[in-house]
């Protein structure tokens, strides 16, 4: 039976109203077909491509174009972007806000990226901050946080979080298990700080829909740092305890708030950390290691099945 047939039956039985039937059947028949995601994705790619091109042009034609042309060009684009956003923005609200139009979010994102390019150029050419140049990252991230909250822009929030990570010396795109000894404490502080800010702002009722972005980034950085600590062989038990504690929190809170991605983080990272520690002096193709993988894998599956049975296909 097709969904349209079911809709007709529900309408006749009074389970749905005629208005609901009209609205839903229009979508099912594809009489209204949204290209919202496709337009957004193309605009995002357009912005990324544009900024990458600007950086490449500056790098290639630095000597030909000259500082004045480059700086005035970047400043002009920057001013145009930000003035567009400030002139069209809706008043601030601590709740979720719809963008005034499709381009708005991406123009703001473009402005932020151009700002980053301009700062990097200024420092490279004029060495204004000398060895303290990394404070540009802190300053940029504070600015991006402000703009993300003012204009309710999740792309800029992600940019702010990754720029803040840069100030801590981290790179979010990098495989987290490879954090070196010197970097691990910074990663842990960053993760705790980001999670705390996210939770605190959530409790204050400010842009609650941003909280998950904070928590996803913080959890991945924290889990990665803790596992790298277990691998590194210096006080591994301490890192293992931390990892198991964090995995427990992620699993319990994930179940409590029905955010199953965090349950998956807890199970996967917890298992990886535990296995790395237990199998560190054992060959992976030995009988002991393979038996461990079978038994422990079964335990994980059994507990996950119990969980899955409780929550069914709930998303």
């Amino acid at each position: 039976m097709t969904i349209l047939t079911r809709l007709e039956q529900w309408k006749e039985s009074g389970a749905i109203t005629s208005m609901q039937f009209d609205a839903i059947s229009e979508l099912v028949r594809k009489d209204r077909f949204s290209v919202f995601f496709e337009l957004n994705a193309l605009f995002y790619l357009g912005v990324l491509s544009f900024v990458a091109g600007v950086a490449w042009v500056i790098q290639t034609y630095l000597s030909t174009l000259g500082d004045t042309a480059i700086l005035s060009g970047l400043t002009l684009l920057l001013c145009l972007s930000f003035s567009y956003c400030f002139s069209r923005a809706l008043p601030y609200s601590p709740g979720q806000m719809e963008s005034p139009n499709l381009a708005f979010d991406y123009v703001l994102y473009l402005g932020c990226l151009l700002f980053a390019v301009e700062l990097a150029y200024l420092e490279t050419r004029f060495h204004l901050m000398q060895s303290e140049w990394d404070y540009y990252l802190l300053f940029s991230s504070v600015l991006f946080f402000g703009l993300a909250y003012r204009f309710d822009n999740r792309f800029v929030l992600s940019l702010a979080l990754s720029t803040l990570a840069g100030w801590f010396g981290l790179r979010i795109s990098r495989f987290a298990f490879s954090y070196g000894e010197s970097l691990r404490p910074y990663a842990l502080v960053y993760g705790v700080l980001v999670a705390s800010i996210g939770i605190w702002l959530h409790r204050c009722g400010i842009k609650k829909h941003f909280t998950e972005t904070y928590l996803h980034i913080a959890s991945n950085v924290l889990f990665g740092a803790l596992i790298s600590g277990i691998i590194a062989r210096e006080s591994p038990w301490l890192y293992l305890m931390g990892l198991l504690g964090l995995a427990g929190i992620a699993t319990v809170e994930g179940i409590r708030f029905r955010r199953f991605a965090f349950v998956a983080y807890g199970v996967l990272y917890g298992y990886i950390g535990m296995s790395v520690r237990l199998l560190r002096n054992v060959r992976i193709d030995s009988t002991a290691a393979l038996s461990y993988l079978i038994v422990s894998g079964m335990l994980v599956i059994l507990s996950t099945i119990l969980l899955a049975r409780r929550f069914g296909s709930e998303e």
Partner: protein
Amino acid sequence: MRRYSADDEERVTAQFCIREWERSGLLESSQSARLEAELQVDLRRTNNFLRGVLFLFTGLIVAASVLLTITVFDLDDELLLATTTGIAGILFFALLECLVSRFRLYRFGVEEAFAVAAAVLLSVSGAAIASTLRGNRPGEFPALVALCIGALSAFGIYRRFGYVYAAFAAMICAAGIPFQMALSAEVQRFLVAAMLTLVFVVVRSKRLQNASEHPGDEYGIIPASAWAGLYFVLNLQMSFGRIEGWFYWGTYVMIWFLPIIGLRLALRVKDRALMDVSLAMALVTLATNKPYLGLSRQPWDPILLGIFLMAAVITLRRWLSKGPDSRRYGFTPVRLLTGDSRLLTFVSTASAAFQPEVPAPTSAPGKPDFSGGRSGGAGASGSF
């Protein structure tokens, strides 16, 4: 042939739609609860995250069990290895059947991992047997056998359980077969292109005949994947091998035509999967055009591409918005369902991990030598 009844799968699809309509404010929660109750099925399901966890750990257990058997019994001989993996493949398939019939598992992760394991183990078994029979056969005979068995078993799993990714894997294996034969590079690509075109035409015609959402949704993804595969095989800048002459220029023409034809077909019947694939193909064509012509890329190329994309989106959006009820030919730039927003939220969160590489200042004496590098707005690894 299919392990699940069409009625059950239609009900599952309808339940999914009801949840989406409720989230999008088209139904009250009380209504959706009542409608979902009407659509109850005896299939055991779980959400995608737990499904993923179950899939991974079942795969881990399967791999460890097979390796343990090989280690304990010291199965060095290829024939013994072939027998073991073959028996294991059949056992896991039997286990899969048992789980589905007895526990009614449906997209639960565990049974899916068994299905994948069965196909992989049967392929390994076939390859091991082939390597004992190799003799003087030309080409990569064991790989050829493995790909043939892989394609057949993955296709069988798709037909039996409806896993679309199994159909996708079957296509990849089948596409790999000509590359294991002692044929010229042109003939290899031609054979793969012909096979993928056949898949596209056959499955798409089924989709057009099948008005219902299930299995119409499967028939949407498979031809789109075949179309993408066809493009990948024909775009010589994306894949390995050196080809010149008329075939090279033939593929150049094709990489321009395929996205246009795909878009045209997709827009006519509002086929989202094919539309998205064709748009991606169009972008890749623009990105690989210069290398195809032997021209060097210029620094301003990405700027032009960016401006083109932004201008195209703004123009299209305005044109659609100015239509009656903000739509033209049924297309609207307005968000209708929350699924679109969720996808965008995912992209924006994930964007933290792939910010564009903005060159960082070079003067940083006296700073600690962090091994992680810099990221985000003003931080990366390059220098002006």
